[in-house]
Every structure is written in structure tokens, then in C-alpha cells.
């Protein structure tokens, strides 16, 4: 048995690969930024005294965690279409991925909030800080630092999962690959290259999160110790 690999025809299409990879990265960045915002708000809602907020947040998290990403993407895609609104595939993909990762982020950040010792909150209350000041100055950073590895893994995972948005023709990396392999009949070679591209993207993201961590946690940068 011999495997006959020919990358020539595929490597010629490198601009298409590159634009697909950039689009994938854009999806990941958008979902990371807005997913973090949703996660923080969702975690605050889940821990609030307001029963409506707690239940809405719980319903959101459980719905997302118990349905497949592809189905969620179709729901957003066809849901918007049935309302008569037509958005570009990229916008729909970004929205669906954000909604998806927001739920996981909510749970991760909630765990971080819960891990902040009660004494920290009492000390902050004793200093007359308001509830929001306590969240912002006392709870947020140590909580994020505690769950930072889990959080960043989730975002890398999401970047990889974004390949399913090729199903609604978002022109990201996997969609580009599907197109090229059907054009060149070099499916195996195409997906080898795509796999390598995803590995590179993961490394890029991890490097980005590492640098962001240095900026976010100056104490750790100086002392090197986890909280």
C-alpha cells in the first residue's frame, strides 16, 4: 500500500487558507471577548439574591450545556431567518459561538467567584465598599486568576469548535478546506494542512492568553505564585 501525497495544488491556494484562518481567529476573539462579558454577568446573576435573575441564568446555562453546538448554530441561523432578518453568515456564526461559550464561561467564572474566601468579602464590606465595588476591586481579578487555565482552555476549545460554523457557510478555515478539497480532489492533503493550521491557531491563542495573563496579574508576574 502506498500513500501518494501531492500538496502542490493545495499550497497554491494558500491565500484562501490564510483568509479562512484569519476569519476563524476573528470568530474566536469575538466570542472570547463577548463570552467573557456574558460569563461575568451570568455568574453575578447566578449568585444574586434575585430569584428571577438566578433562574434565567440557570436556564440559559443548562440549555446551552445540554444541546449540541451545531443545533444552536442552526437555531440562531434559521431563527433569525424566520424573523425575516438576514444577517451575514459570519455575524450569525459569531453570535452563536458567543452565546455558546458564554454559558460555559458563566459556570467557570462562578466557580472563581465562589472560591474567593468569605473573609475577603467581609473585609471589603467593613471598608464600606458597595456591592459593585467589591465585585470590581476585590472579587473579579482573584476569581479570574483562579480559573484562568480553565477559562482559556474553554476559549481554545471554542476556536476549534468554530469549524462547525462551516455548515452555515461562514467562510472560516474548515469551510475553505471543504471548498478546496472538492475543487482539487486532494481531500487528505487538504485536511492535513487544515489540522496543522488549527494547531498553529491554538498556539497563537495560548501565547495570547499567556501575555494577557502577565498584564492582568502583576502580582503573579512579580512573585510567580498562584493565588
Amino acid at each position: 500500500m502506498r500513500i501518494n501525497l501531492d500538496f502542490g495544488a493545495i499550497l497554491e491556494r494558500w491565500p484562501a487558507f490564510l483568509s479562512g484562518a484569519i476569519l476563524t481567529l476573528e470568530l474566536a476573539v469575538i466570542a472570547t471577548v463577548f463570552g467573557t462579558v456574558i460569563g461575568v454577568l451570568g455568574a453575578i446573576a447566578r449568585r444574586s439574591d434575585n430569584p428571577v435573575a438566578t433562574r434565567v441564568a440557570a436556564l440559559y446555562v443548562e440549555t446551552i450545556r445540554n444541546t449540541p453546538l451545531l443545533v444552536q448554530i442552526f437555531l440562531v441561523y434559521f431563527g433569525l431567518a424566520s424573523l425575516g432578518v438576514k444577517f451575514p453568515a459570519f455575524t450569525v456564526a459569531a453570535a452563536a459561538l458567543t452565546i455558546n461559550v458564554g454559558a460555559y464561561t458563566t459556570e467557570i467564572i462562578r466557580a472563581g467567584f465562589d472560591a474567593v474566601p468569605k473573609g475577603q468579602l467581609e473585609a471589603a464590606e467593613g471598608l464600606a465598599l458597595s456591592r459593585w465595588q467589591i465585585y470590581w476591586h476585590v472579587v473579579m481579578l482573584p476569581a479570574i486568576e483562579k480559573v484562568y487555565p480553565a477559562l482559556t482552555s474553554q476559549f481554545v476549545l471554542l476556536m476549534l469548535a468554530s469549524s462547525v460554523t462551516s455548515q452555515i457557510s461562514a467562510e472560516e478555515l474548515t469551510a475553505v478546506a471543504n471548498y478546496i478539497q472538492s475543487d482539487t480532489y486532494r481531500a487528505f492533503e487538504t485536511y492535513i494542512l487544515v489540522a496543522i493550521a488549527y494547531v498553529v491557531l491554538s498556539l497563537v491563542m495560548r501565547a495570547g492568553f499567556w501575555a494577557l495573563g502577565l498584564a492582568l496579574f502583576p502580582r503573579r508576574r512579580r512573585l510567580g505564585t498562584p493565588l
Partner: protein
Amino acid sequence: MQQNAASGAGSAVVSLREVHKSFGPLKVLDGVTFDVARGEVLTIIGRSGSGKSTALRCIDRFETIDAGQIEVCGHKVHDPGLDLRALRQDVGIVFQSYNLFPHLTIEENIVLAPSSVKRIPKAQARKEARAVLAQVGLEDKLHHYPEQLSGGQQQRAAIARSLAMRPKVMLFDEVTSALDPELTGEVLKVIEALAQDGMTMVMVTHEMGFARSIADRVVFMHRGKVHESGTATILTAPTTPELAQFIGTGL
């Protein structure tokens, strides 16, 4: 507005009247009454579970009470409509476990409340941070993180952090219980200096020698009640057998 309410020299800064508090079926405070005058140092002693820490925490409304009245610097603490943050600007509290914010430097720990609660400009707040740190002998630790300090230093920094809010009363909840005797000494020295400056203080403590030397008045709590109280002489000449026994076991 709130600050004028407690005017009148010598009037009680802290006053508890028939305070009752239960945790479920457990009666923790059973009609506690005591006053703390301006500039006075009151120490609360008693066995674990006697209700002394709960009584202290009620003063800063970390616990809500079931019945009775608490007035602190003119704030009606028992009133459900209490302005909690106004109360806590007048009352400083220091805990057994220091509770410095680990992600902030000592300076940032101290500057946080004055700048975000009292809206004092950052530059001025930093200046005051240096002043209160000097007061507790830690001016060289300004840019250190809490974990770089010893337990005694952390506790002194926590005291400085409270002082930066310029409270009218300081509460100390077993602040030396987590420290070895040497570190305890350096923290007690800081508290002693505060007392000499005329700070009104309520402290729950197990340091009998310290209570004897610093306290204007001592309250001995037993089974949720003020069992015996008076000047520090009650520690050398107790009148109730329970206090005698408590001190006896403490020696």
C-alpha cells in the same frame, strides 16, 4: 448629618441595649447590654461560644439582631433602614485572619476604600496610606504584596487599612489569635499606641495580660450574657466564680 447625631463629649459611641440573637435554636446573645464611651477601650473576654465575637460583629452589622437596640456613632444599627455604608465609614473592623486583598499591594489595599468610597484623590490617598503605614511601622512595605509579609506585619497592615478610613470606632475580633507570641507583641504594641491616641476601641481578645494593661473596662461574657463587667481590676479580683474559673484556666 449622621456624624452630628452622636455629638456630646463623654456620651456613648457604642451602645447595646438588651440585644438578643439566635442562630437557629441556639441562643447566642441573651440580653446583652453595654456602652463604650468616646476614647474608651473596652475588651470583651469569655470562652469560645460565649457570644463575644457575635456581639462585636453585631456592632458593625455583620450579624442582624433579633431584638434589642444597638446605636453606634448615631447610627441605629438595629433599624432595618440603616445606611449600612455610612455606619461602616464610621466603624473600622479588623479580623483574626487579616483579610488583606492578596492581588493588591499594601499601598493599593490601603488606598482602595478612601479613593473609591470617600472619593479622595489618588495622590492624597497614597500620601495618607504612607502616613498610616508609618503609624504601624511598615512604611517600607508599601509596594509589597500581602504574601510577602509575616502574619504580624499583615495584621498591622490590615489595621492601617482600617485607619485610613478615619473611623470613629475600631473593632478588633481576636486579631492576635493566629499569631505566635512574638508577632502578637508587635500587633498589640500598635493597638496600645492607638489607645494612647484616644481611639475608641472594642476588642475581643484572649490576651488576658494585654486586656489588664490596656482596657478601661472589661466585659466578661458567659452563655450569651454579660456575666461580669468593670474596670480591669475584675481580672485580678473577680467577683463571680465563673470569671474566677475562666481566668484561672487562662493562666
